[in-house]
């Protein structure tokens, strides 16, 4: 049996990835909008009132997807940073720096919506418990990654230095995830569990999953657009970028 001759490595060069990202981004954006509208419809018009939390629980439809994305994007960012560090591939490092702002935004949204949910349910905007504190550290890791990268003039040196933060900081992600099991915290346990059936009403769960897909698609679209900016900024002296510029 012969493997089909798909030259995947071709797309590891900024020059070939740039137009591919440009073609894909609008489709992810459209899909994100469709899923968001459907998810919000489920969240506000199909999902019933929670018998304990009333309507306040509806914050879950953005809180949980944002929190999942904040952790997932961090792992993807650290993964690309590690690939860039190990194999010196420019595009990998560009992907890492393109993911960071969106990851930081998701972390901020998770913390913000968490505070607005915590106040009516726990009586406090913020408590220094394991889940909340480790999520706050995640925000500082994203910001540290971006600030360090911005502080170093030479982009390739910046990539390597920032990659070290990203990789070391990845240890925080399993800490966030398992914090509700390892420590006695105010935060409730995992909303979705693969080993036992969920305790949530199925429309609530369904709405949360649709919103998660929307957040996922949105993140991909935004990262693709941002990596195109990063490519143009960093490859501005390359011939293909100059030719591209001549055509605009």
């Amino acid at each position: 049996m012969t493997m089909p001759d798909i030259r995947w490595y071709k797309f590891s060069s900024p020059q070939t990835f740039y137009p591919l990202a440009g073609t894909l981004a609008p489709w992810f954006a459209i899909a994100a909008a469709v899923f968001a509208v459907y998810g919000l419809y489920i969240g506000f018009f199909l999902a019933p009132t929670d018998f304990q939390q009333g309507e306040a629980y509806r914050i879950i439809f953005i809180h949980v997807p944002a929190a999942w994305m904040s952790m997932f994007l961090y792992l993807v960012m650290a993964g690309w940073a590690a690939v860039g560090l190990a194999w010196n591939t420019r595009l990998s490092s560009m992907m890492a720096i393109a993911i960071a702002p969106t990851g930081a935004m998701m972390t901020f949204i998770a913390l913000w919506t968490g505070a607005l949910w915590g106040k009516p349910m726990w009586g406090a905007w913020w408590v220094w418990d394991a889940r909340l504190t480790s999520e706050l550290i995640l925000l500082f890791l994203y910001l540290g990654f971006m600030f360090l990268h911005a502080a170093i003039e030479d982009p390739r040196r910046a990539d390597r230095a920032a990659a070290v933060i990203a990789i070391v900081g990845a240890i925080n992600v399993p800490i966030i995830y398992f914090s509700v099991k390892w420590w006695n915290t105010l935060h409730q346990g995992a909303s979705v569990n693969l080993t036992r059936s969920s305790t949530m009403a199925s429309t609530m769960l369904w709405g949360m999953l649709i919103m998660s897909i929307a957040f996922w698609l949105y993140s991909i679209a935004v990262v693709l657009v941002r990596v195109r900016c990063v490519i143009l900024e960093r490859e501005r002296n390359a011939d293909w970028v100059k030719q591209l510029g001549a055509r605009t």
Partner: protein
Amino acid sequence: MSWESLSAFIDMGGYGGYVWGSFGVTALCIVIELAALAMRRRRILREFRE
């Protein structure tokens, strides 16, 4: 879930400030991120023409 009126929807059973504060700030974050990206791209393309 059917809401009795628009004001009931906005009130969110008394939790309106918390619910809309969450969804509103999320929407604002998305708008800011998209605007910042559009500006960044426009700036790059402008620099090309110079």
